[in-house]
């Protein structure tokens, strides 16, 4: 099959933009009536497109990963020091909750550690294929925290991130640190009381169940700051019952 020069230049243009071969280019161009821009959009939005593009762009992410990996680290693993440098590089402060959003995105096994394949997979999933685009995505990731669904995902993942190896529940001070980080806006009416309540209790760890239920409790407290609708006989962990009783007795 032969094409005139006009079509040929379109094929060339498409191939260059999408880094695909001529056959793919012709297929996409045909189905979008030889409009290069439309064909490119179709290509990038389809699964097929991202996979084949990723194969070429992954190299960039992989080399980015290697840049921050310390040579003494395990292969394919970036540890704290590199992670800190990476965060600085992409403009994320270490004491902002966005760190946790990124950790969830990259499925970090513990805080401060990234694995190469998860790193590449995570960034590709939001189409951030190089340092430049990663930087540009940060504001979006930051704003994810305001969205209940995304926040819940990050919140629940944080327990895993924060869990010291070999333990089943979070040491109290670690739990308090992450609660402050994540809940300072959502739970601002009660967070100080909650923390001072925890510090005065002889319990020194927080179970996964308490951590998870805390999310729902925060949602409840947001809609009902007086906590009047809280049922102390309901299916809440008893530590929350104690807290609500404590709050009610103060009122």
């Amino acid at each position: 099959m032969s094409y005139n020069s006009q079509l040929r230049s379109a094929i060339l243009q498409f191939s260059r933009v999408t880094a695909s071969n001529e056959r793919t280019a012709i297929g996409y161009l045909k189905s979008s009536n030889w409009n290069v821009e439309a064909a490119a959009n179709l290509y990038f939005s389809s699964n097929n497109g991202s996979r084949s593009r990723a194969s070429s762009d992954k190299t960039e992410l992989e080399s980015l990963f290697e840049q921050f990996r310390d040579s003494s680290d395990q292969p394919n693993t970036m540890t704290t020091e590199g992670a800190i440098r990476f965060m600085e590089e992409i403009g994320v402060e270490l004491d902002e909750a966005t760190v946790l959003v990124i950790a969830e995105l990259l499925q970090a096994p513990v805080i401060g550690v990234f694995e190469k394949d998860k790193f590449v997979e995570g960034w590709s999933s939001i189409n951030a294929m190089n340092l430049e685009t990663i930087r540009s995505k940060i504001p979006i990731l930051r704003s994810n925290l305001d969205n209940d669904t995304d926040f819940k995902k990050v919140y629940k993942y944080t327990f895993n991130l924060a869990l010291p190896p070999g333990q089943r529940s979070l040491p109290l001070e670690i739990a308090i640190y992450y609660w402050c980080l994540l809940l300072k806006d959502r739970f601002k009416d009660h967070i100080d009381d909650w923390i001072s309540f925890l510090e005065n209790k002889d319990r020194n760890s927080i179970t996964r169940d308490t951590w998870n239920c805390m999310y729902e409790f925060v949602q409840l407290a947001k809609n009902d700051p007086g906590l009047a609708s809280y049922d102390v006989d309901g299916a809440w962990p008893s530590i929350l019952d104690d807290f609500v009783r404590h709050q009610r007795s103060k009122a």
Partner: protein
Amino acid sequence: MASRGPRGKIRPPRRGLVTDQVDFDEVWAVLAQSLGEIHHKNASALSFEALYRNAYKLVLKKYGDRLYNQVGQLVTEHLQYVAVRDVKPLVPSAVVTGTVGSAIEKRNGGSKFLEQLKAVWEDHQLCMSMITDVLMYMPHQNRVYCTDHKLPTTYATGMGLFREHILRNSQYKIGTALNKVILDQIQMEREGDIISHGPIKSCVHMLESLYETEEENDNEKVYLTSFENEFIDTSTEFYRAEAQKLLQECDAATYLRRVDKRLREERDRCADTISSLTAPRIQAVVEKELITNTIKEVMSMDSGIRSMLDHEKIVDLSLLYRLISRVDKHKNVLKDMACDRLIELGRNINSSLKTPPAPPPPQPQDISNPSTSGAAAVKEEKAASSATLMAIKWVNDVLALKDKYDRIWEQAWEKDKGIETAITRAFTKFINDLQEGPEYISLFIDHNLQRGIKGRTESEVDDVLDKAVILFKYLTDKDLFERHYKNHLSKRLLHNKSLSHDAEKQMISKLKVEVGVAFTSKLEGMFKDMHLSEEMTSEFRRKQQEGEALKIDLSVNVLTSTFWPAKAVGIDSKPCSYPPIVEEAREAFTAYYLQRHSGRKLIWKPNMGTADIKVAFKGRKHEINVSTFAMVILLAFNNVAPGESLSFTDLKSITMIPDEDLIRNLQSLAVAKSTRLLTKKPMSKDVKPTDVFSINESFSNPKIRFRIGVVALNRVENDKEKKETSDSVAKDRDQQIEAAVVRIMKQRKTLSHQQLVIEVIEQLKHRFAPDMGSIKRRIDSLIDREYLDRVEGSRETYQYLA
């Protein structure tokens, strides 16, 4: 009547030309006159035939409607005349205007009026039926015709006219007067006068036969529309005033009787004076005014329910029950107030325990009963027995209260289910108010199984045990009862104090029936241990006799540690160093036992045992039963030359008995007067580490056999022990809650929080009432240990993780 014309032509007769000519006025005049005669009761002279034909003629000539109207007109005029002539003069003005007249005057005047009205009514009915007969062929008689023409029948019209022109006579207000007279008569009867019912009944009957419209709907009887409401209103007023009067004048019992009487009166009145249609409404009025609105006040009187209950006034309480049942099928007032009093009485019983009862009469000493041992021991024994006395008093008082309420419930309250539940709730409440409740019930049983049932027949024993079970059923903390029962039972078994093995078994099987095998299995295990130990001891002895015989007789109770109370078998064994002849026996038994049951561990509890020792003082031999520790102490003196002494420290290092037990045993042996086998220097009531002991050569006791007790077991718990007990109770309960949660979840796989909590409480109700906090903490812990999890997306539902 044919006319013959000249032409001789024959024509068919024109029928009815002449005869058809009917002058309505003429015929009506005849009819009207005759109907007038009927009204004047001269009907016998009339020819029904002639009248009937006249009426028929008019109808045939289509004068029907006109005739109908004329008849109506005629009846109206007659009734108006009757109202003036017959009724009006008899209207008793005094009643109508409300001026007070004498009873006789009122009764006579009223009766005359009613009689007259009745007569007029009966006349009218008679006349109307005759008129109806005369006008039989008038189409208006025919209901079909009438409904077509929307005109009522002649008779109905007649009745309607009576209603309008007599009762509702706009000039004389006869109906109003009638109501007033009837109500006045009823009022007189309510106040105790005698009235004659006949005339009233007749007039009521008249009202019942009249309707608001000629369609004669049943719910539009004049009785209902004009009379009944007024009757109900005046009655309401009367009974409201009556309630106030009775509340001031009567005591509660009288009040109830008056209400009962009023209810009967009104029922009778509806049957014989006014209409039975009114019965439900007037009953409701009396019930509302005399029961619903006031019964609480009546019951709160000094003579009210409190006094009735206290004095068991069965008749009054029964009447009260029946009256309240009329107005409230749940009988809430009765339930509440009866139970309030019950709880009050129960709490009185509880608080009367705070003031201890008079000291028990001194018990006659007998050989089987121990003599005293040491001042402290005496005091403790006293405390223990006064606790038992208190327990028995409490149980008896509560049972007496229970019996009393049972009698009332049976005889006065028709064994009402709702009340039974309320009574049970009340008992549960105050019995569980008393912290010592579980202990007291167990002590009561202990007392009876040790002494109380002596000489009683089997069925009497059964009764006593049943009573204990009644109270047991009310206990919420059945696990606490189990604890105490285990302690008491272990003392009875180990010290051989139980009077009857059968009674013990019986008690256990009663408990088993109430709360199941799980509850009693450990108790039964204790019996089994005793039984096995007996067998084992005799087998051991037999074997020993085959070989080299021991120098002492040893009998051993081997207790399974999980069955017996911690106090009896606790791990905190108190070892001591036994004298060689005892040690030899101990080792022999240990060897025998371990050979029989390999892999078991035998812990010796010298603090639990006793020994029979033979001692000779001044040539007199005694056989003395002492504790194992006391035996070890006394045997230590065997190695001491006569007159020599051993210091406290010596004894301690020889015997290795823990200080606490050493002191307590030395107190029994060296301080208490009658059992002073040892002398102590210096003499004092307390044993100090610096004391020195020697054999009391001058000891004498008239008895050959006696016992030196150590009251270490009946001691009241001190604070530390109390805390330990309550901690161990709490721990035990936590375990049981957790086990219940796991059992339920294992079976149900997923379950909502509410449902799980309900089922846990249900499962444990035979042992104790678990509190919400404990249940939730157990659930927390099970989630944390990954036995349970919350179902994804539903915090309120748990799932079991296998």
